[in-house]
């Protein structure tokens, strides 16, 4: 069974299997990598140029380390696909998007309609992050 992935990018999906962060540094031809909660996303920073897909695994939605991992990658200029996989629920999608995720492979399917509604939850945002949305303070002061 092919699990459904919600993708918010126009490029072709990467078909390479994702390797672990530990294995990645030794495999110069790998283009996809999977980050587990305990992995240090910064280990990937020297290799961002050749990465096309980063999967960030959420074994349990309550483990929020993946939010920091995603944001760190985006803050350092990673432009490839950033996919949240695992225990990803509709009520977390909005925050994940704000931290730089642009694709989602949840264990339980989420309809595109439900996802769109989740992304539209907040009319504005208080913080500047990596999603390009202006913070409320920026709107207040032009």
């Amino acid at each position, binding site marked *: 069974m092919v699990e459904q992935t919600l993708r918010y990018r126009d490029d072709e999906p990467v078909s390479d299997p994702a390797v672990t962060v530990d294995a990645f540094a030794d495999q110069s031809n790998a283009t996809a990598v999977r980050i587990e*909660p305990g992995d240090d996303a910064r280990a990937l920073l020297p290799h961002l140029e050749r990465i096309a897909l980063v999967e960030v695994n959420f074994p349990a939605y*309550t483990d*929020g380390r993946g939010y*920091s991992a995603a944001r760190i990658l985006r803050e350092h200029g990673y432009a490839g696909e950033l996919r949240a996989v695992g225990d990803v629920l509709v009520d977390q999608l909005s925050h994940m998007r704000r931290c730089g995720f642009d694709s989602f492979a949840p264990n339980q399917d989420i309809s595109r309609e439900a996802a769109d509604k989740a992304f539209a939850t907040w*009319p*504005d945002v*208080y913080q*500047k992050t990596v999603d390009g949305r202006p913070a*409320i*303070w920026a709107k207040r002061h032009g």
Partner: protein
Amino acid sequence: MYQYDQYDQAMVDARVAEFRDQVARRLAGEITEDQFKPLRLKNGLYLQLHAYMLRVAVPYGTLNSRQMRMLGDIADKYDRGYGHFTTRQNIQYNWIKLQDAPDILADLASVEMHAIQTSGNCIRNTTADHFAGAAADELVDPRPYAELLRQWSTFHPEFDYLPRKFKIAIIGSETDRAAMKLHDIGIQLVTNDAGEVGCRFYVGGGMGRTPMIAPVIGEFVPPLQMISYLEACLRVYNRYGRRDNKYKARIKILVHEIGADEYRRQVEEEFAHILTLGLEPPPAELERIKGFFEQPGFDASASDELDLSDPDFAVWVSQNVHAHKQPGYAIATISLKPVGGIPGDASADQIRLMADLARDYSFDELRVTHAQNIVLPHVKKADLYTVWQKLDAAGLANANLDLISDIIACPGLDYCSLANARSIPVAQKISERFADLGRQKELGELKLKISGCINACGHHHAGHIGILGVDRKGVENYQLLLGGSEGADTSLGTITGPGFSEDGIVDAIEKATDVYLAQRSDGERFVDTYRRIGMAPFKEAIYAKEPVNG
């Protein structure tokens, strides 16, 4: 006081709509309780022993009269006519129906209030000095910074699933009235020799089962880098705080395990990176917020004289009134600790009366204190007698601030599903034993704090006298601690020895106060004497065998 603009209002309105949808999905069976529970908790809705409990945020403990009135009206309309003010400067309602919760949030939003992030493993409501903007000893008004913090922490996308809950307190006086060093982060606004303001960051304090006093991590962070520094502190914690054991997941354990120096090094590294990202609100935003906290229109000619010919009034003034920075004005604290009463509880009528007094006599402002009392921060001295008379008529003129009957108590096993023992009946018995105000004043400042379980919501570690309720084979049992404190002299209490029954703990406290009265030197408070003479004399008196024919 801060007022919402269209952006702030839109955020709380969106939250109401989101929660309305989540409740509807739960009631329709579209999501399970396991999925729903974290969502309701993020809106402060707990399932407690008898009903749902709603915890409403009072940002940095500050309210206007309209908001306070709404809190009273909600108590009548959706609850059973009362509310409970908490040690986190919030208010809790004990008898909420799930189906009503979205409507309550809507009512709160209509007065610029909410229950956002009053539970869950996220950044909780920021607390602050309850005398902010009024205290005579204030260096910097912390409220604009607290509001900046409120906005930054609201729906922060990276820090919504931290290892554990996260509590921040901020003060701007030398006197710490907010137990700042016992928070995950305490920020003290200080000034340097050049008169510039800086933020001193204390990180890794807390109570709970492993109480710790926070070390200084950031000595002098510029206020216009405060948000960036917080981002760095939180990111290090989110990435490396322990998630394998809920009881070791607070930031205090991380700071303790890797050491303050290593934590500081990691924060500094992250901070340097974050400063390149431009996450900090601009100076104009801080200035805009400061504009809401200008001094109210004080009467410069107000008299500093006070007629104390009514002795009952004079007692209340001596105990419950503090110096204001503006001559002719005073800070009045309303004690919610009547003899035999429930600490922190107020009826809907009392809440509305306090709202009216704020409107008529305190420039529309009130504060909630972490000691579960209410403050009228700006009362003209000429109005104090009238205010006191109105409080007295409503049973709110208890002149016991910081005395032994001004007890902090968590809801305990009467309400709370986490509790192991009841707290409130113990508080009631102690206040009845020491009901005589003259006796209380003789004992002087004595902070007594009771928790019904190890989570320490009643701050027992920080009480001059602390009580911890435990479950001993199904029977309530109470441990006694001495020597804690929460101010500039923050210290953690020490357990005296074996625990006591409900009546036994009251007797033990009385014996401890007898030791103090017998041993004190001039001017010593209970805690000062304890520090000087140590535990032994207290222990000896408390555990002495009663003479057989005594």
